[in-house]
């Protein structure tokens, strides 16, 4: 722990896990979608559901979806800001099986119909973990950039993606492969040391057999 984990963060209260962590979950979801969503369906589970209202968890999640950071003083009024931004949202309360006590599932759509479903939990001290993306377990901490590629389950794609990263001098920190039984496709989750440039993402999206490219770069929140 560095000294600014002890003194800090500067944040809107009242709780680092239920408020600051919830803002981060919203923010990560917005980044994974690539823009402020036009529509969001948010499911609160466990203690997020039980004590979320008193901690402003609902407003914090919406604030994050709008691109606010945990120290933004507009967080308490995020519902009004969402209305102004034309973002529709709704909340449901449901126990998500096997999930960490502070968990939310955010299903979001942009205005072009692109959609992602993000299940994430707040681990305490404002730190979060993205547990699932579109139903596939990915367990990404969001403290490093990450690239998530859905592709047809056939050989060659891992080599294509990793050589593209090598070509751009992007270091791979972790690489995991999953198979989504329902979709019949494979999912690559790559955490990197550097942000992934937009041009590489565009290139990847055009590669045959690649279904969906989702990226989480650091430091772009606005």
């Amino acid at each position, binding site marked *: 722990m560095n*000294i600014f984990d002890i003194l800090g963060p*500067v944040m809107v209260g009242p709780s680092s896990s239920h408020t600051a962590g919830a803002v981060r979950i919203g923010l990560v979801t917005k980044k994974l979608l690539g823009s402020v969503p036009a529509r969001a369906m948010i499911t609160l589970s466990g203690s997020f559901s039980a*004590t979320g209202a008193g901690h402003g968890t609902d407003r914090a999640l919406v604030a994050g979806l709008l691109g606010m950071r945990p120290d933004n003083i507009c967080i308490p009024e995020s519902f009004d800001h969402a209305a102004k931004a034309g973002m529709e949202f709704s909340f449901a309360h449901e126990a998500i099986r096997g999930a960490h006590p502070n968990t939310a599932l955010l299903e979001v759509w942009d205005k072009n119909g692109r959609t992602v479903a993000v299940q994430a939990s707040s681990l305490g001290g404002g730190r979060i973990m993205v547990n699932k993306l579109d139903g596939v377990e990915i367990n990404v901490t969001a403290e490093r950039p990450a690239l998530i590629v859905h592709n047809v389950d056939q050989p060659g794609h891992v080599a294509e993606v990793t050589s593209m990263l090598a070509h751009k001098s992007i270091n791979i920190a972790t690489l995991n492969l999953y198979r989504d039984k329902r979709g019949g496709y494979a999912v690559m989750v790559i955490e990197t040391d550097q942000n992934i440039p937009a041009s590489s993402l565009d290139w990847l999206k055009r590669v045959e057999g690649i279904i969906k490219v989702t990226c989480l770069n650091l430091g772009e929140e606005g």
Partner: protein
Amino acid sequence: MAFHSMEEILDYCRIGNKKFYEAVLEDDMEERKVSREESMKEMYVMWDAMLLASTSYDGSARSASHLVGGQGLAMEEYRRGGNTLCGDYLNQVISQALEMGESNACMRRIVAAPTAGACGVLPAVLIPFFRSGQAGHRQIVKSLYVAAGIGQVIASRAFIAGAAGGCQAEIGAASSMAAGALTALKGGANEQIGHAAAMAMKALLGLVCDPVAGLVEVPCVKRNVIGAVNAMTSADMALAGIGSAIPADQVFDAMREVGEKMHPSLRETGEGGLAATKEGIRITRSLVR
């Protein structure tokens, strides 16, 4: 490499003939690969945010549950009346602690130190010290390094979360950090900083985390007051030359042991202590959707 014991910090200071804050600052430069200026600028941002939070206190704000709000304002009016038991200065400390705790509960911007629940303790002792002209910005920022260093040792030997070790790990840790910071501000020796931190933690050892309805409101806001006042008395004792019979590191180890033995209902679950009182349960029920 972050420090894991007060002994390590004191040794580092002894060998290099340094002040307590320099040890923590130099360690941060090493750990995060930043310059002295970069590190101090970042610490200044924390201090600035504390000041801003204090000046933007709104006595009319109420928390989501309406349990909290306006107490800091009431205390401030009482202090201005001039007829208090604790005297003007200590009453400023009390008001400041209440205000910051309330601001947190009312979704305003604060600095977690070390947690959001305990965010009032450090500003409560530092802001009146600063406003009364006893220290400038630079000295306060240096004292924040002392606080952070102590917090780091506590985090490494024990914990700084109510869910892990009860309120002793939040208000207790904040109080210990604040006691060290105050001792440094008053020109105390490095060893005295250690004694102050130890004495402050000893006084709050065993404090449980029992928030009503699981919200960071009751008893959290008012516990910031005891954390701040306890820091003042501990620092004064240390400055008077009174030592802690048990060294700080061993006190923190004891805090860990006590926290581990603490029943889960007393670790932020909102199921024991004040939360489980008749009134606590009534409040909880009244808040259910």
